[in-house]
């Protein structure tokens, strides 16, 4: 089999144009889901009442269903629901079907990511011994201060390796945004491929771009972790 290298070069360059969109979806999703997941993890730890049961139910629901199914569900349900709300309930004239498809992608990935991150943060918060919280109380810190200054900084460092995996998983999952007609890396290459039936070439280029992007993200996390975890090192700093 002979690969069409000229096509590969073209596809690579064209698909790179999708990278910003991939990052945009990833970053906005993280910005939405990290704070929500963190507060859900905290509420699960702090109060064993109704709200933590709801959180648990939500997490099981999302983790128990394939993300493709979540995408299909939301993408079929959300636009018409929003349309109904806007037109019939609030009486506005905004055409929801003209809204940028990226918004749906971000909503789906956030809903999914919140569930993943809630579990991740909960276990990370659990790695910081309860004793430090108690010690903070005895020196007069409020619970909020103890979380902000002692517990959360350590939990974040503990969460970094898993967070890195989750972010990489998210980046790879954004390729599914083509199901929602978002023009990101995968969608662009697929379109190019379809024009000349060079599927293998296109798929190779998609793989290459994701490998590059994911490696960069991994390196970034390694640097951050190194910066933040100085207090864990036994050798003098």
């Amino acid at each position: 089999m002979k690969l069409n290298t000229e096509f590969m070069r073209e596809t690579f360059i064209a698909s790179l144009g999708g990278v910003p969109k991939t990052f945009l979806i990833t970053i906005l999703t993280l910005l939405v889901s990290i704070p929500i997941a963190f507060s859900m993890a905290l509420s699960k730890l702090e109060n064993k009442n109704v709200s933590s049961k709801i959180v648990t139910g939500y997490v099981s629901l999302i983790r128990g269903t394939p993300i493709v199914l979540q995408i299909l569900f939301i993408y079929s349900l959300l636009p018409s629901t929003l349309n109904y709300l806007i037109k019939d309930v609030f009486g506005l004239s905004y055409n929801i079907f003209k809204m940028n498809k990226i918004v749906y992608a971000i909503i789906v990935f956030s809903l999914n990511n919140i569930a993943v991150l809630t579990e991740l943060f909960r276990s990370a918060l659990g790695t910081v011994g309860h004793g430090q919280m108690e010690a903070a109380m005895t020196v007069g810190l409020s619970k909020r201060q103890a979380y902000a200054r002692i517990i959360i900084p350590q939990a974040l460092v503990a969460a970094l390796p898993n967070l890195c995996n989750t972010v990489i998983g998210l980046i790879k999952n954004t390729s599914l945004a083509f199901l929602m007609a978002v023009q990101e890396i995968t969608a662009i290459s697929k379109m190019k491929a379809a024009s000349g039936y060079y599927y293998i070439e296109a798929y190779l280029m998609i793989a290459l771009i994701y490998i590059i992007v994911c490696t960069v993200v991994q390196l970034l996390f390694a640097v951050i972790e190194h910066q933040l975890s100085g207090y864990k090192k036994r050798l003098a700093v």
Partner: protein
Amino acid sequence: MLKVKNVSKAFKDNQVLKKVDLEVEKGDVVVILGPSGSGKTTFLRCIDFLEKADGGEIEFDDIKTDLNHASAKTIEKIRKKSAFVFQNYNLFANKTALQNVTEGLTVARKVPKAEAIEIAKKALDKVGLSDKYDSYPVQLSGGQQQRVGIARAIAVNPDIILFDEPTSALDPELVGEVLKIMRELAKEGITMIVVTHEMKFAQDVATKVVFMDGGVVVEEGSPKEIFTKPKEERTREFLMRILPDFDYTI
């Protein structure tokens, strides 16, 4: 100065504390002895509200409250007047030795940073850690960590320090350095309640020894009374087990 009365606490149907009373005068070193599981830790934790007692009252100088229904404000006041030294140190792992000590000053008591650092350095000097200001807890030995724990406690200038078996997580050769500091604190007249199995410390330093068993105070008195002529059979049995050469005169 500190009076706690009728402290009761159950975990599920395990009644751990059954109406425990304790009185502490300024300058007292109260040592609480007792077999494992007798409720010593739980009692100490109830005083500092780390555990919520089912019943009981506390009177701490001018603060007076029910242990079960204390308001957040009152709890904060009592915590700011006291300090706690834990069996397993519980140092803030993400803070240096110095930051461990300043935390309660700058954040909880709004002491200006420069002043807090001065106080913290003095506290660390006092426990012999002048060369460890910038070390993180993982970089310190158990004995050094516990000394940071003590520095963190004394830095806030508390009216009382509660010690829960401060040396029992330490290797035997490190116990001495911590006890030495506690002896010095006692000599300076710092009020403390100490749960410990270090009998020598109790005999030498305590102004009052309290023997707990099964969630009640079985007996209390001066070290001399408890160690040489205990009144209660349970106290005798305990001392005989823990002090091989214990002999008492009836």
